[in-house]
């Protein structure tokens, strides 16, 4: 789909800081099992993108990515 984006978390490096959840609570959550970041909406709409970009910037483990 033209213009679509994909959000990913590389869980191998995730430290479960929850920064992505603070930056974009609609898009990210932390797993109840291990506290690691999970993506709730892998292809978020445009209005959610500023929060996602913030999450990419804030993630201390630099494991959140946005492919545009």
């Amino acid at each position: 789909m033209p213009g679509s984006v994909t959000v990913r978390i590389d869980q191998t490096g995730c430290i479960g800081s929850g920064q992505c959840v603070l930056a974009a609570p609609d898009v990210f959550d932390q797993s109840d099992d291990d506290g690691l970041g999970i993506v709730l909406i892998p292809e978020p709409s445009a209005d959610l993108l500023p929060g996602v970009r913030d999450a990419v910037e804030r993630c201390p483990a630099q494991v959140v990515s946005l492919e545009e």
Partner: protein
Amino acid sequence: MTEAAVCPVMHERDHPLQPPVGFAEAVSDGPVKMLWPNGVEAWVVSSYAGVRQVLSDPRFSTRKGGHPEMRTDEGEPVVDADQPGNINGIDGEAHMRLRRPLARGFMVKRMNELRPRIQQIVDEHLDVMEAKGAPADLVGSLCLPLPSLVIAELLGVPPEHQELFQATAREMFGKNGSKDEYIAHATKLGEVLSPIVAEKKAAGTNDDMIGLMANDTDFSMQELIFLCIGLLAAGHETTSNFLGLFTLHLFEQPDQLEILRRDPSRADVIVEELMRYTVGQLGGVGITRRATEDVEVDGVLIKAGDWVSVSLLANLDEELCPRAEELDLERDAVSHLGFGFGPHQCLGANLARAELQIGLRSLFTRFPNLRPAVQVTEMSYRNDMITYGAAAIPVVW
């Protein structure tokens, strides 16, 4: 790429809420080598990008790192590098093994569940403060007891051992701490914690942090006890200092305090900006890493084996946000380094956020006319530990 001259580390401040005199000038031209009074020599990196690089690049090791002054007179870290459970002194997979189960205990939603209890503790302390009447010392009335009670509850440790937690924290985070004193306090604390851990293990519960560590991880008893000591100590010193410093900055900038008073519901964003600004204004040098191979940072070649410290001034770098030297509580939250960066970023950050947001909002809602009883510059400040804060904050309302 010539090596910069070695300059001494400064501690003296013209104003208690501003960076040490001459520090910004000394570090502004990129990484410089600085010499600590205890003989440790380290590069100081102070750009926003440089600090992010040092704290996240795996070529910088945290082994025997920490703050250059968190050492004995002989220059050795107070806590042994091989201490089991020394989460701040290990890298890579060994660090992740300890970090991840703890991160689960500090999850955002878990911290949000704690908020009503934090609010209750804050309200009770403000009730007492109000009943006793002005003037009051804000540090003793709220800043110190709040994080200390919360971390004890989160771990599941009776709060009556508070003094022991504090004494251990003083050696652990003290400047030129004593290894013997530290070991004495930590041993005593270990004796308090061991039966609690055994009890949680027997019960098989994981509803508090010790239960979680005892029953949901492969941590050894030694690791578990040391991690508890670290969490209790860290939970004491940092948040209490910041709650006090935030209040003092607001006293000094009434236009900014007005922004909080006008809309206390923005406390979450306001705390992020206060964190950025306050850490930046502390200035000076933060945590230290050691290069395991040659690495270029901000155009300077850091050689394998060299120590590198990050400057807290990175939070005031224009690269992070415009007018970075100003406190602007109307600003959106930015990606500041107040809780550090990289895999060792503050484990308790989300707990600290909740405490600071609730504490600050409740304080100025309860006492809209809260003001310092003496000049901020006349108050006494504690500089004996690597953390910094007001020893007492006399207030009236």
